[in-house]
């Protein structure tokens, strides 16, 4: 009998165009917290998806409790007592917590002794007990669309426990949480470890590994770089191994030189489709040469705020003033012309026409102006030369240059294309929403440099990010949004991470607000 509960030997997995895992071997002991560290695209999630039966490896073997297994489906993984919390939660939004947890393993009762039905009521009780047992309190009868992200994560954990999982995989569990919620989650993980569970933690955040992990495997570009004992290794060392070179955590940012006020948002209220106030009475202003970052947990109204400024959502109340001009009721085109550039959160849904060629995407906002068109007739030679210029200047890589269908490009290069287009607008206000989401460290550094460069040109920058690190390192001014309200606006130097975190939870806001 082997000492290891999980052994993955020489695992190789290829996807069209990339080798996601290249002969990776890891061994995990029972009862330890094992971290998988690596940049986005290093192959961590792929490796664990194979352990969970979502893909099968092209080569290599998997041993569970010393026995060789072919894990062909999540169902079989569940039978092996393996559970996984995915990065994007897999929950049915119009089902209750109980229904989500029991789905696939529903206890049945017989109506009149013959007709089988799902015993939801009995399950409610069982789930309530289970949640108390592990300190993961939830109300089992609440629907998923009524609870917040951190509770949804608890539901995912309960789902694994309900299936009596012994080996728990967490895929980037902290990405969507506030600092305080992260602390709480790490405590839960420690508690699960004490209860005898084996935990695999996928992450790219070093502090978390330092706090909870026993050992840490580092993946880089699909290959296993090293397996380290966390207690005896410094975070700096781990980081260097992860990226494969020296990392500079700090963003080079000169002292600010503020210019005139560019954007002023006054008592802005935004309603969603159902008439709820998603942004309430928000006020702040940004000067030229200033980066104002909005910190907040996902879903607290920051995207709607950006959409309202750009004109994608109507303002239900208040004013938006750009360069002294009231633009509250202007249409989107007018706002673009008046000087708003916008890098949207969802680049594939909003930022690009994926089925257009690259060169057709660059003038997406200018196609109706000279030189791209005259009196409604397009001038394609201008499209060509503009495209070539941007590809060169922003180092956008694609299969067939100008003529590449954007859908076939990598996420990083798609984002570069959007940033190139928006920066070239030469607008006085540039809105960045989650500009580095899903990109690797190299690309992130690059984009951070670009944001700072725009600031140095005297542009006003509105940065919306869920990554607190990004907010702290880039912002001149921080505004914290909670439940649609701006709870705090202050100079970035005067706020600590902890304070910002408390505002993000809404803990601190109410007493400071008059």
């Amino acid at each position, binding site marked *: 009998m082997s000492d290891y509960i999980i052994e993955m030997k020489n695992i190789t997995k290829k996807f069209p165009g990339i080798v996601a895992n290249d002969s990776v071997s890891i061994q995990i002991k029972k009862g330890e917290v094992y971290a998988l560290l690596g940049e986005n695209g290093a192959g961590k999630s792929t490796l664990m998806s194979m352990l969970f039966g979502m893909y099968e490896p092209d080569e290599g073997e998997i041993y569970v409790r010393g026995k060789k297994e072919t894990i062909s489906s999540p169902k079989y993984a569940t039978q092996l007592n393996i559970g996984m919390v*995915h990065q994007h939660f897999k929950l*049915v939004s119009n089902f209750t917590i109980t229904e989500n947890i029991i789905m696939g393993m529903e206890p049945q009762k017989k109506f009149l002794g013959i007709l089988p039905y799902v015993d939801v009521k009995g399950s409610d009780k069982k789930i309530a007990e289970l949640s108390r047992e592990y300190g993961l309190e939830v109300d089992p009868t609440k629907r998923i669309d009524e609870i917040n992200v951190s509770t949804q994560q608890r539901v995912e954990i309960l789902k694994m426990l309900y299936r009596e999982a012994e080996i728990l995989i967490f895929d980037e569990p902290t990405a969507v949480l506030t600092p305080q919620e992260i602390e709480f989650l790490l405590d839960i993980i420690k508690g699960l470890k004490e209860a005898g569970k084996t935990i695999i933690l996928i992450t790219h955040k070093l502090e978390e590994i330092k706090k909870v992990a026993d050992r840490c495997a580092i993946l880089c570009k699909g290959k296993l770089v090293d397996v380290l004992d966390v207690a005896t290794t410094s975070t700096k060392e781990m980081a260097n191994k992860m990226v494969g070179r020296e990392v500079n955590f700090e963003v080079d940012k000169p002292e600010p030189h503020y210019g005139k006020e560019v954007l002023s948002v006054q008592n802005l209220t935004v309603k969603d489709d159902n008439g709820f106030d998603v942004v309430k009475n928000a006020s702040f202003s940004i000067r030229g040469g200033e980066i104002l970052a909005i910190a907040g947990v996902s879903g607290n109204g920051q995207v709607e705020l950006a959409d309202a400024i750009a004109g994608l959502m109507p303002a239900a109340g208040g004013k938006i003033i750009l360069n002294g001009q009231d633009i509250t009721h202007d249409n989107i085109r007018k706002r673009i012309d008046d000087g708003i550039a916008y890098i949207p959160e969802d680049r594939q849904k909003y930022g690009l026409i994926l089925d257009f060629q690259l060169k057709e995407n660059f003038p997406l906002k200018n196609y109706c102006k000279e030189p791209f068109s005259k009196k409604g007739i397009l001038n394609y030679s201008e499209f060509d030369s503009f495209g070539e210029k941007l590809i060169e200047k922003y180092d956008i890589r694609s299969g067939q240059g100008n003529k590449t269908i954007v859908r076939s490009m990598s996420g990083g290069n798609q984002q570069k294309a959007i940033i190139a287009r928006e920066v070239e607008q030469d607008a006085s206000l540039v809105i960045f929403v989650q500009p580095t989401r899903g990109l690797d460290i190299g690309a992130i550094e690059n984009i951070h440099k670009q944001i700072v460069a725009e600031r140095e040109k005297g542009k006003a920058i509105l940065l919306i990010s869920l990554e607190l690190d990004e907010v702290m390192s880039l912002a001149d001014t921080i505004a914290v949004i909670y439940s649609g309200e701006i709870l705090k606006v202050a100079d970035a130097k005067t706020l600590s991470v902890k304070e910002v975190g408390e505002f993000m939870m809404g803990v601190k806001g109410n007493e400071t607000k008059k």
Partner: protein
Amino acid sequence: MLDKIIIDGLSFALPLFVMAIGGIYSERSGITNLALEGLQGAGAFVGALVATFLMMALPSESQIPYYAAMFTAMIGGMLYAMLHAVLCVNFKANQVISGVVINILAMALTVFLTKVVNRIAFGAASDKFLLNVSSRWTIPGLSSIPIVGAVFKDIYPFEVIIVLVAIIAWYVLYRTRYGMHVRACGDNPQAVDAAGIDVAKIRFSAVMISGALSGLAGMCFAYSISAKYASTIYVGYGYLSIAALIFGSWKILPTLGACLLFGFAKSAGHQIVQVLEMPSSYSDLVMVFPYVLTLLLLIFFSKHNAAPKALGEIYDKGKR
């Protein structure tokens, strides 16, 4: 006159309702189903064909062809629906286009086959199958209650079948494991997959159920409207039932309400033409009524309807 409105209204509303339930199954599982129109026609074709053969073999008063037709229409609709399922689930085709294609093909095929079968099997140049006139039931006692009693008067046997089927369909969708999985597939197929359930299987079977229920509905229309099967079966009731399930926001009970509204609107219109002794050409104008009502209702209800979240989305398991 009120009696007549209720009797005719119900006999129209119930087939519409059972077809809409089929639509609900398919759409709650995440597959847009504009093919209901074609499914009901194809199902009814099979049912009518079987009934025609049985009618030749059995004495004329036999009720067997009637029930056999209902049953085989369900089978026929189910088999034909597999085409939509294959296109949408396995071939990952655009579901709207697939639905429309299937309707057009159903019409072409059944009209063609009706002629061919008539010529080859019966040696007659006819483009329709004649069916027996359906018997009607009246429940003594209950039917003599004023106004409400009309519900129990002159019932087509298929109305009873539909009520039973509807109750079963409701129970399965909202109370059983399978129904739970169907509803989950239309909201978040990834979650269903992660729970170890085969999304493709659930969706495929849900489309087949919609085919079976549509086939039943088509057969009922064939019996109630004209006691024959012909290309006149394609009068857009499939689309009407889609409109009904949209008002019913993809839930079974509210959809019943919408169907009853259509049914009574239609029968009331006809009664008005008769009572006011208008010339028969005015019935064409009255025929417009349910469609106009549909459009008007859509105007009021479409904006905020809660369509299943993953409706029309192609689920690709291998997608990262």
